[in-house]
């Protein structure tokens, strides 16, 4: 049933929301609103008897009660073709780069979730050559993982660095509340490395309407899903998801929904999860890896946005003072790639050992962090002015070496070299019996003196 009727009377306007009386309207369908403010798309977000509530993508500012509303009879769609690559659009799909509009293959956004039975266990490591990632919190294809940082940290640089290292077929960038300069920087970084040609960008800048910000993840992920179904490994970069959550909050408040926590709607978790869960390694098609940025208001990880995100994603990289913190940072999929036993599979015609980096990987990973935790305690004691015991002295030496040789983001080494370096640092600072490593491993890997 296609409803072509045009309506000319809006009964109520508030925030980005308009209410009018209309018939035969479908839940979630799209309408076009033409008013003094221009033309904008809008989505049906509530039906109540004859009353239809619309969310206007460009916001309600300047929309008048006599605006022309035409229901389109279908849900929000995004065009899909290879012509998207190398291009940049707004959250509602309008070209941002002066290029032609793309209309091919309109595909609905926000599709149902993947059947868990059609997922496979992620097992392909993404090598970044950053020891804090590769050694301590390996990134894995199909992982969903945010960078937690306060405003001002170089999170977008880190995002771009990983994106360039990761050898994906397609990159989709979803920018939310992005500064225009940052958008340009992303473009030029990708351009310089030649990756722009395999990238599509959906960018909402801080100056654009709020509702468009809310659309960015759905649009980006719908496109990513299409590419993945063609068998491609797709990397999606979403920055900044806190802006997305804030857009949801703003809309929920204008809808007079009861907030659950600091003004955020009660379904914040489900809403974020619906997006992040698009990360997948399909059984019989490609994959989607999601790397996101979640800025933490007030550097507070218990703020509802990072908190809910942490409960959804498969770990997080905690960026603080330009370094990836060992505490707070986590990759839940690391154990999928560092099992320490051989398991070979065919990937693109090559035999790849998927489970094993090196048999000492897990042990070094845990032992070094445990010792670093003790170092932190020693630092605390030292700052109180206590005498340092012989053991404290060892920890102090260790902590300094660890920070310089492992944590510094300028370090750029292969995982195996990082493992060797780990043993070297331990041997430089401790005796074999002091590091809590089973003898069968230290027999093999403990560096010989001299």
């Amino acid at each position, binding site marked *: 049933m296609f409803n072509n009727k045009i309506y000319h009377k809006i009964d109520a306007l508030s925030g980005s929301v308009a209410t009018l009386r209309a018939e035969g309207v479908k839940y979630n369908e799209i309408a076009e609103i033409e008013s003094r403010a221009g033309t904008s798309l809008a989505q049906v977000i509530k039906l109540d008897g004859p009353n239809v509530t619309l969310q206007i993508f460009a916001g309600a500012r300047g929309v008048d009660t006599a605006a022309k509303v035409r229901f389109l009879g279908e849900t929000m769609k995004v065009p899909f073709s290879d012509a998207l690559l190398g291009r940049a659009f707004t959250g509602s799909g309008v070209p941002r780069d002066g290029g032609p509009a793309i209309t091919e293959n309109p595909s609905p956004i926000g599709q149902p*979730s993947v059947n868990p039975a059609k997922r496979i266990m992620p097992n392909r490591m993404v090598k970044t050559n950053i020891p804090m990632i590769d050694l301590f919190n390996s990134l894995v294809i199909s992982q969903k993982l945010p960078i937690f940082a306060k405003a001002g940290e170089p999170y977008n640089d880190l995002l771009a660095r990983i994106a360039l290292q990761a050898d994906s077929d397609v990159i989709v960038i979803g920018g939310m509340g992005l500064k225009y300069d940052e958008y340009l920087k992303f473009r030029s970084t990708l351009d310089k490395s030649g990756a722009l040609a395999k990238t599509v960008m959906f960018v909402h800048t801080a100056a654009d309407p709020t509702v468009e910000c809310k659309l960015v993840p759905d649009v980006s992920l719908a496109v990513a899903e299409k590419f993945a179904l063609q068998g491609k490994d797709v990397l999606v970069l979403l920055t900044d998801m806190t802006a997305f959550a804030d857009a949801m909050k703003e809309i929920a408040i204008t809808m007079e929904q009861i907030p659950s926590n600091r003004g955020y709607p009660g379904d914040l978790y489900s809403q974020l999860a619906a997006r992040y869960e698009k990360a997948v390694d399909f059984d019989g098609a490609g994959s989607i890896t999601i790397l996101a940025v979640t800025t933490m208001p007030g550097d507070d990880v218990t703020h509802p946005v990072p908190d809910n995100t942490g409960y959804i994603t498969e770990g997080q990289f905690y960026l603080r003072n330009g370094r990836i913190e060992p505490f707070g940072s986590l990759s839940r999929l690391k154990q999928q790639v560092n099992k320490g036993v051989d398991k070979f599979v065919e990937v693109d015609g090559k035999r790849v050992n998927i489970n094993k980096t090196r048999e000492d990987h897990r042990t070094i990973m845990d032992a070094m962090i445990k010792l670093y935790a003790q170092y932190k305690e020693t630092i605390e004691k030292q700052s*109180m002015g206590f005498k340092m015991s012989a053991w404290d002295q060892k920890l102090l030496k260790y902590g300094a070496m660890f920070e310089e040789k492992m944590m510094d983001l300028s370090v750029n080494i292969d995982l195996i070299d990082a493992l060797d370096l780990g043993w070297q640092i331990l041997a430089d600072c401790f005796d074999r019996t002091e590091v809590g490593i089973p003898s069968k491993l230290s027999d093999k890997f403990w560096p010989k003196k001299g």
Partner: protein
Amino acid sequence: MTAKGKIVAVNGNMITVAFDGAVAQNEVGYAVLGDQRLMAEIVRVRGSRCDMQVFDATTDLMVGDTVEFSGELLAAELGPGMLAQVYDGLQNPLADLAKEAAKISKDAEFFLQRGMYLPGLPRDRKWDFHPTAKPGDRVSAGEALGWVTEGIFDNKTMPGHKIMVPFALRGVYTVKEVAKAGDYTVTEDIATLTDANGKDVKVQMMQRWPVKVPIKCFTERLEPTETLETTVRTIDTFFPVAIGGTYCIPGPFGAGKTVLQQTTARYAKVDIVISAACGERAGEVVETLKEFPEIVDPKTGQSLMKRTIIICNTSSMPVASREASVYTAVTLAEYFRQMGLNVLVLADSTSRWAQAMRELSGRLEEIPGEEAFPAYLESRIAAFYERAGRVKLKDGSTGSVTIGGTVSPAGGNFDEPVTQATLKVVGGFHGLSRARSDARRYPAIDPLDSWSHYNSVIEQPRVEKARSILRKGNEVGQMMKVVGEEGTSLEDFTTYLKAEFLDAVYLQQNAFSDSDATTPVARQQVMFDIVEKALLSGYAFKEKDETRKFFMDLQQTFIDWNDKPFDSDEFKSLKATLEKKIEEASNV
């Protein structure tokens, strides 16, 4: 006569329906959308209108669309064919959904299709029915009529899968006729029963039971006194779970709730494990799904998957079926309990279930309680855990349902409605701490804050003694932050090192190490003996550094000991080494 209705409002996954006729609270209805029928459940009735939560996306529904009511409550199908299945929250088998969706298109196969529902029990499969009841027998709900073999229930090492008188039948019946031994599908008649008024009832292997109603075909509830062996040392020794008991695992994100539950699902000594992945990550379910079939269960010698059922309603699946999923899980558990089995239900995470209730309550515009959770949150949580228990069945045997739920408190702060409501009703509390998980001290169960009302595998006074050393050691550790190591007496310092030793070699257990991941009780007891020796000895050291060196060396030997197969020669020889080291260093 079932009622019919028309949609008058749509708001998210909630529809309001004007109906003719009679409807019941929690009755299931279907919103008709072209050739699709979207399943929904009545959550509130007011006059001639009812509010329904739809178990699928409501996109494209219109005011005026038809709703057909079923006259039935939301129910699970119970019978042979559930083991090793992976279901969604409404008991749709996920693998079958994929196959069915593949008929639509190649790409459709990957996604959950709206309005597609499939039977929970396979209809075409035949089961070898062996009757045990005879004509003339007097039977009532829950009593056995016969059995079939299914997977581990082979009637050899394990009993067969019992076919029981449907739980919904009230009163006593006389068996009129029982099918002879042979192969039947779950919908074929296998018996005819006659009630007190002479009315005949035909019985099939499959029965339906409303998931939100507890099954109560037992004679009495028994106290949960026996320890459920999880093979996680901290749990079995310090914070035990009882067979038929309840416990919860609250903790901030990434602290290790899911890993702990996965380990338990793998190694716990129970007959059946039902994992409810409720509003969490799909990837975690996939891990279980792909790994369990390859693991051999030492008890049955068969694949671990054969004792497992997964109810998987992950975070991006419809939120209304997430609400239903924990009930589906516990209903299936109660069914197996009726056969005299011990069943473990692991729900991860109950907070997501509570949030599903909150979303629903918000759409109903109910008066919100704390953090916008509905006022009935506490009673719902209590009623859920109340479905656990050890019971005496009509044939004199016992069966049990044990429930362990994770809780995901906002900001990792336990002072929030779901954690608090849960703590009021459970028998064990395994609180995970961020400080421990940051320091990679897994499992991150806080050894000072956690508690359990159940019986340990070690005598209580010995456990208490060890815990008091932990507590004291922790106090010394705190004090050292103020007065420094030099301001601490050697005695206190030794206590501190003892506590650290207990933590490092006993409490900490690496779930990803093949040798360490599981410690059966017999081994725990031997380990505890040695740890206890080290804790209770007095030492003759003069210097702190010397003491530290001793404990580090002891720890190293202990870690190597943990690596050795139980009761092997190496195991015995390292045990002797440990004993000798402790003896030599002690001053008595």
